[in-house]
């Protein structure tokens, strides 16, 4: 089937955006990645102009790595799981807006990883030497922990969140949810206060405006608002305790 693809492009981080329109022939079952791959094989626009292939990031193509996230018809999602047949005959592709654009559809999402570092999103183990099994974890904790742990740092929740913008340094829903994951774990809980402290700081959990866009946008159904609500309570108790202890 023939489809039109309109791509918002940019040559360098500082140059201004421009539009290229392509027409490609793809199979009924194609996804947006296949469309971009077809363009690479013959990068000619509808006006017959030969242009450079569209730069885009992708890796696993099965919606577990998070790399190919972009705006597709104005909605942030992974290009690999965006099937063309559900997108109409004109597809608009543009880079994520909440992250600096590098080139074409590629953005720099390092702030997500910086956020993970800030909240100490890890279990503080002694080392990799043999110390026997880890602490027992109940099936109940595992079920909720696993849901949070499927977050692939794709940035969709931040794209959807009105509080993530040029005027704020809100670390975003994904990173906050990870705090709950690690605070739930018996060993992770040993530095629970450090993580809560990092959430109280500027750009932390108080920036959340409760728009609840994040949980609707998340491709992996990570319980984002559930996590934020729980941590709102935890940070509140922690602040009171800190106040009383001081």
């Amino acid at each position: 089937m023939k489809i039109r693809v309109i791509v918002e492009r940019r040559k360098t981080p500082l140059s201004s955006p421009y539009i290229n329109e392509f027409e490609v022939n793809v199979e009924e079952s194609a996804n947006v990645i296949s469309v971009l791959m077809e363009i690479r094989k013959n990068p000619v626009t509808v006006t017959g102009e030969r242009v450079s292939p569209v730069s885009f990031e992708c890796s696993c193509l099965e919606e577990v790595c998070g790399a190919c996230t972009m705006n597709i018809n104005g909605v942030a999602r992974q290009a690999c799981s965006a099937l063309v047949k559900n997108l109409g005959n004109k597809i608009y592709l543009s880079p994520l807006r909440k992250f600096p654009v590098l080139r074409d559809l590629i953005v720099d999402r390092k702030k997500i990883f910086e956020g993970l570092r800030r909240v100490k999103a890890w279990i503080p183990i002694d080392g990799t030497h043999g110390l026997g099994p880890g602490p027992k974890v109940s099936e109940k904790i595992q079920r909720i922990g696993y849901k949070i742990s499927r977050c692939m740092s794709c940035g969709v929740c931040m794209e959807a969140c009105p509080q993530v913008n040029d005027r704020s340094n809100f670390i975003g829903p994904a990173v906050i949810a990870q705090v709950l994951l690690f605070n739930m774990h018996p060993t992770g809980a040993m530095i629970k206060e450090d993580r809560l402290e990092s959430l109280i700081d500027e750009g932390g959990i108080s920036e959340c405006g409760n728009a609840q866009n994040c949980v609707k946008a998340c491709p992996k159904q990570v319980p984002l608002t559930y996590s934020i609500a729980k941590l709102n309570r935890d940070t509140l108790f922690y602040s009171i305790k800190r106040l009383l202890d001081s």
Partner: protein
Amino acid sequence: MSAGCEVIVVGGGLAGLMATIVACENNLRVKLFTLLPAKRSHSVCAQGGINASVNTKGEGDSPDIHFYETIYGGDFLANQPPVKAMCENAPNIVYLLDRMGVMFNRTPEGFLDFRRFGGTRYHRTAFAGATTGQQILYALDEQVRRFEASGLVKKFTGWEFLRAIIDDNNICRGIVAGNINTQEIEYFKADAVVIATGGLGMIFGKSTNSVICTGSAQSILYKQGVKYANGEFIQVHPTAIAGGDKLRLISESVRGEGGRIWTYRDGKPWYFLEEKYPKYGNLVPRDIASREIFNVCVNMGLGIDGKNQVYLDVTHIDRETLEYKLGGVLEIYEKFMGEDPYTRPMKVFPAVHYTMGGLWVDYDQMTNIKGLFAAGECEYQYHGANRLGANSLLSCIHGGMVAGRKIADFIKGLEKSCDDIEGRVFEREKNLVLAKFEKLKSMKGNENPYQLHKELGELMTENVTVIRYNDKLERTIVKIKEMKERFKNIDILDNSDFGNQTLFFANQLENMLDLALVITKGALLRNESRGSHYKPEFPQRDDENFLKTTIAIYDEKSDEPQITYEPVDISLIKPVARKYD
């Protein structure tokens, strides 16, 4: 040499991250080079689980049995001592991951749960839903982030390995790498380098691998004189779903949890694996299952709807169990095929999946170049002629651990550090890469590199996968050489100096062509059938002539691999015929 030495790790998957963690624990500072943020490495795609014989189900499983089954499953081609060490280390590894907080599935009592996988009859596979690779990768990524926060790790994200720096005494002293966005090309010094760059599925065009699995780094090293072993052993996974951009894996764990393979024969469901292999049923090793499915579809013409596909059926299992244990993989099927696998059987067909061969390494994970180590899927050591399911995550982590420890030992014994090496050595290697990229940039021929890659993939998939014939392999070699000629006439398509992906892809493509030759020539010369390598003209395993490791060495004059053979270390288990019926 002591604290403060710098090492380089190339690759952010399980092997690279584990090597990084262990190196940091040995007080080494690590520069970690990855194409994408480590969290997006191909290890995320591993679904089913990780093997460790901890015998929590009271079945009498042990690391010795795991060792035996791994060697047997690999058709006796793996050197035995390192495999034994891996299986013995497996319980420690799973406990370690558990301590790192991996959200493994649990039993009602809160213990780790284990499930069955192919090539064994024990419940030996720990799992986190059906996204185990992702969950383990994240845990290691988190530990590395911890070392990054403490200043021991410096990440070079978006940098591609382009060349090893090998000094006049044949010792590796660093690498040359290029930034995919800024297009800078620079050298980096190190006292030891660990290559952990994964498999090479992209040589087959469409496979279950991520698009970053090009084998480019391995190919570059092979052309720099690193031995490449068992190239012809490529695992074709029996159950994947077709797509225009890739073939998506449907994990073996689906059968481990009771999924059944069938097609129609004479109008009735025919469970051909269960019928032919009553003992293992749907859980025969992957090479066998793939050949049987291939046979049923291609030779017998019994594929579903007349196409090359059979059913993988879980509709008899209750939804709650499926969601808890297989949710992640069934979601992939549902999203990409638009059909509900809970109520309708899935349609699957074999796809290229895993690279058993790879860079030759010794038992310390070191290649034939001193100071250059390799771990994970990019090396050849643990799986012989066929890998058992859920052994890949294990071999990546174990190999990474060994490499992390051994680089520390190696550096202690080094007479000169990389800082004592003359600058010209580094400049020389960097200039070679710069010259190559200048040449690539100037290419304005009429071959589209992406189109050429597609043709390479089709050629390799058609001729060098499940069934191999010598005449076809010979023709494939001729065709690859033609493609190497055509490569000289490519159009680089993009003249930009920023984020020019085609430039880097063209470089990868050239490297893929060279490794394709290694794979195909190795296959042509191995006149027997063993594990994943199957020739109808030579249907038997031939231990007398081929119980040997294939070694490919690049010959610059002919621009081709020279193939020789090395004996296999079978000191622990005597080879016997491999049967699963």
